[in-house]
């Protein structure tokens, strides 16, 4: 080509591109075919109150709906749990509704199991298949061979699920969640004689001590406690609450602390008891609180003899002085409170470590006190031993004692494979999944009965540990259903009515909505109240039933704080009881002293020199958010890593192993090995590496599938000879560098845009 021609063509094509690029064609205006008759005015938004079901916290939400489409989710300002705030996961749940890979009709497996080959069928055919299997069980007298697996349900769905299983005649109902607060309920039962979860009055406290409780990201009710933490720091004129964090890794919560005690993994319980000993020795404890609980200080001190400062310092790897200082500050700065979290609880000695933290609260007089800890009255009961139940179910599956498994949720991804669950589940002849996407569990299923998206569903959300007063949040459909899907509850009711007999008699509801209405009004309506329909509408309008508006409760809290100080530090116990509605914490008589013992780990220290910590990702929690592209795009707040999985490693360790930032490493545990990029992160102990949970899905739609790795594959389910306990942070690993091609993407780095194809939706 001649130079002149090249230049001419170049100029002309540039000019053409310029002109055509600017002359954008006129847009199209698409009118309704038939205008909806619900009074929709184009251009004007309607707001619906509902509840978020992305985690157990159950925040209240307001959904903006315009022209019949949900556009934006924000927090409900009247809801006492989140007071108008909402986390990224809640905001992103909008994308669950519009996910391009949603299952649009019931599916029947057409290829071999796990191949992902399904054919669409009608609902009548799908229900006939389901009830056919159930009827066969009944007919052959094997109704105990039905298993139901759900997340930890509360409210009307729990009533329905347990009612269904009881009337059907099977006891195999498992409510399991990887990060469920069973450990906290069990510890409370041992210490206080009742399984209610604690509600921390974080906003009013002056000294906060967290033993691995990541309350800003994932612990119990993160939006509630994130907000309360802000008020603890800045909400009072003269007081800025102090925060000390104990844990091997600086999470977002840890990074917000004034002081970080990087205790050795598994030594949290010993640290708490060491502090307790300092408090007792120096007589800094709260004598009335101890007396009220019937605990003698002298006896307690003599039994904590083993936790002297030098030994505790050796166990935890901390300085003696730091331990003593924090113990003194904690005991002398009132009100104070100590939290125990998943990081400490998922160790081999976690159950007792949590109790050691509870003892610390008792000593400092933090129980039932403003700025301290109250029992949560919203959901006082819940599963306490679901991990053992999981292991029992795995046994039943292996032994062929289950013929039909109904699964809500995605346990195939979120249960560690070391439990044998996945392998055992594949032996079940007939698996039914209620997933909205073809996730890992649905891929194993023979029949998929797609549930509605949350924004298309009725329901109730009983918040977990989000306040002292009971709260009942309601969910309502904010848009017309997009596809031919049905709610889980409605499918169970339809099956019950088809099966007839005791089942239909126990669940005589035409729809799940009727059940929900009856349950809700039964809890809320005062006898002889105004007509039920207007009450129901009012509840839907507000988003649920809240004991009192947030402002009034604030006043009450202040008032009670004043009353408390007027009554002196002793605060007669009867008065406290009345104040918290007749329920308060008291150390159970005969409750044994916490005895954490030496932590145990899977894998020998010689062969596997590093501790592996898995933690819920800010974006995905235990993995349920991974399908949503907004969350995939969300950078980790500490490392700014995006998209895939990564492994956090201390610079010292990285240097010793020759690992650089972004290198591909192979991490090997006694159970398996994974490859992922390394993030060199100074906020982690040199003997610990950490991997976030939530990635590594085999299914779950185009955004989750095949992205990252699932660190649960590395974990050992149970330590040899130990009683069954979920010890997800008690596995040791070793590390080897593979190459420099880790493919790590961090926000702000130019490479961050190379997967921008994902942004489109």
């Amino acid at each position: 080509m001649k130079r002149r021609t090249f230049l001419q063509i170049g100029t002309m094509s540039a000019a053409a591109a310029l002109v055509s690029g600017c002359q954008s064609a006129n847009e199209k205006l698409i009118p309704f075919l038939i205008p909806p008759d619900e009074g929709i005015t184009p251009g004007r938004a309607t707001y619906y109150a509902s509840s978020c079901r992305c985690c157990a916290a159950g925040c209240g939400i307001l959904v903006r709906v315009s022209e019949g489409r949900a556009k934006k989710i924000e927090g409900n300002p009247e809801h006492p749990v989140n007071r108008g705030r909402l986390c990224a996961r809640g905001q992103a749940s909008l994308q669950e509704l519009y996910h391009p890979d949603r299952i649009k009709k019931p599916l029947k497996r057409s290829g071999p199991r796990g191949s992902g080959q399904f054919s669409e069928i009608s609902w009548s055919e799908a229900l006939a298949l389901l009830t056919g299997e159930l009827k066969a069980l009944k007919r052959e007298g094997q109704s105990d061979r039905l298993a139901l697996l759900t997340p930890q349900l509360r409210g009307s769905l729990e009533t329905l699920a347990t009612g269904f299983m009881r009337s059907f005649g099977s006891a195999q109902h498992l409510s399991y969640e990887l990060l469920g607060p069973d450990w906290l309920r069990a510890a409370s039962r041992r210490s206080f004689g009742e399984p209610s979860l604690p509600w921390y009055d974080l906003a009013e406290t002056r000294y906060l001590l967290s033993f691995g409780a990541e309350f800003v990201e994932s612990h119990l009710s993160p939006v509630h406690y994130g907000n309360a933490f802000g008020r603890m720091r800045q909400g009072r004129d003269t007081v800025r609450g102090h925060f000390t964090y104990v844990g091997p890794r600086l999470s977002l919560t840890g990074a917000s602390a004034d002081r970080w005690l990087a205790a050795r993994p598994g030594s949290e319980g010993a640290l708490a008891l060491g502090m307790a000993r300092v408090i007792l020795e120096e007589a800094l404890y709260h004598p009335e609180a101890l007396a009220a609980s019937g605990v003698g200080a002298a006896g307690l001190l003599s039994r904590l003899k083993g936790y002297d400062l030098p030994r505790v310092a050796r166990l935890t790897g901390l300085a003696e002085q730091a331990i003593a200082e924090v113990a003194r500050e904690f005991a002398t700065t009132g009100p104070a409170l100590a939290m125990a979290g998943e990081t400490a609880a998922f160790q081999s000695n976690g159950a007792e470590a949590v109790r050691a933290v509870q003892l610390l609260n008792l000593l400092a007089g933090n129980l039932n006190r403003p700025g301290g800890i109250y029992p949560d009255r919203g959901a006082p009961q819940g599963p306490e031993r679901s991990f053992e139940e999981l292991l029992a179910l795995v046994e039943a599956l292996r032994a062929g004692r289950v013929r039909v498994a109904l699964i809500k949720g995605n346990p195939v991804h979120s249960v560690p494979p070391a439990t044998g669950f996945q392998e055992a589940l594949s032996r079940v002849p007939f698996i039914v999944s209620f997933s909205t996407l073809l996730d890992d569990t649905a891929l194993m299923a023979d029949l998929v009965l797609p549930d509605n998206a949350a924004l298309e569903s009725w329901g109730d959300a009983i918040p977990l540990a989000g306040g002292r007063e009971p709260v009942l949040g309601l969910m309502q459909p904010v848009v017309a259903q997009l596809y031919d899907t049905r709610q889980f509850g409605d499918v169970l009711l339809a099956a019950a009515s088809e099966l007839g007999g005791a089942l239909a008699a126990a669940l005589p509801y035409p729809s799940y909505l009727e059940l929900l209405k009856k349950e809700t009004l039964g809890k809320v309506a005062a006898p002889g109240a105004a007509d039920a329909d207007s009450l129901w509408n009012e509840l839907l309008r507000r988003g649920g039933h809240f004991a009192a508006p947030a402002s009034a409760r604030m006043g009450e809290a202040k008032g009670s704080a004043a009353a408390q100080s007027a009554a002196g530090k002793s605060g007669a116990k009867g008065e406290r009881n009345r104040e918290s509605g007749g329920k308060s914490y008291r150390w159970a008589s005969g409750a044994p002293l916490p005895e954490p013992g030496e932590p145990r780990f899977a894998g020998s220290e010689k062969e596997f020199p590093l501790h592996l910590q898995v933690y819920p990702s800010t974006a995905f929690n235990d993995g349920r958010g991974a399908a949503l592209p907004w969350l995939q795009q969300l950078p980790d707040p500490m490392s700014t890593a995006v998209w895939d999985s990564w492994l956090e490693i201390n610079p010292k360790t990285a240097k010793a192993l020759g690992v650089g930032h972004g290198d591909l490493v192979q991490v090997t545990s006694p159970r398996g090995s994974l490859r992922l990029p390394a993030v060199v992160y100074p906020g982690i102990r040199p003997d610990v590496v950490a991997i976030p949970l939530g990635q590594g899905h085999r299914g779950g739609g185009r955004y989750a599938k095949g992205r990252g790795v699932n660190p649960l594959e590395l974990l050992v389910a149970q330590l040899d000879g130990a009683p069954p306990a979920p010890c997800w942070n008690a596995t040791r690993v070793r590390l080897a560098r593979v190459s420099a091609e880790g493919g790590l993407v961090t926000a702000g780095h130019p490479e961050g845009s190379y997967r921008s194809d994902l942004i489109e939706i």
Partner: protein
Amino acid sequence: MPLTVNSVKKWWLISGLVLVALVVCAAQAALYLLPLDLKDRSPVQPVAFSHKAHAGDHAIPCLYCHRYAQKSPVAGIPALSDCRACHQFIAPEAPEVKKLMGYWDKKEPIPWVRVHRVPDHVYFPHMMHLRAGLECGTCHGEVAAMERLSRVASLKMGWCLECHRERKASIDCWTCHI
């Protein structure tokens, strides 16, 4: 002949590329500075709807079809079912009405081509302008005389401001750019 690089030819190439870059920059600057209007003012519509016949000859009020203008930021265009409600009985044999019924039979809305549009960073509420007593024609022109709808105003910021100044309406940035 392959493109060889000796000193003279290299200078030719560089000056040529600089020229191209200059032309591109100049064209972009011109587009930004000059009041160029590249959008079609009177696009051809999928159905030859005549505002003259409806609003002019038959004197149907604007708000009879654009019914949301008084209560919503958008005026709204009638749903296909609204068109059909009348044309089942009125002029059902006209060729354009048959085209309309064709859309109805296919259950497809008519993809009208948009004539009036302000950019996304402008909040333009119809209801506030009607409440202030403006006639539709102030901005949309003599629609009742148009066979095919045509835009008469530029819909640029200067044009908005002129009217706002004249009528003592707010010209604060946040009035429109919220």
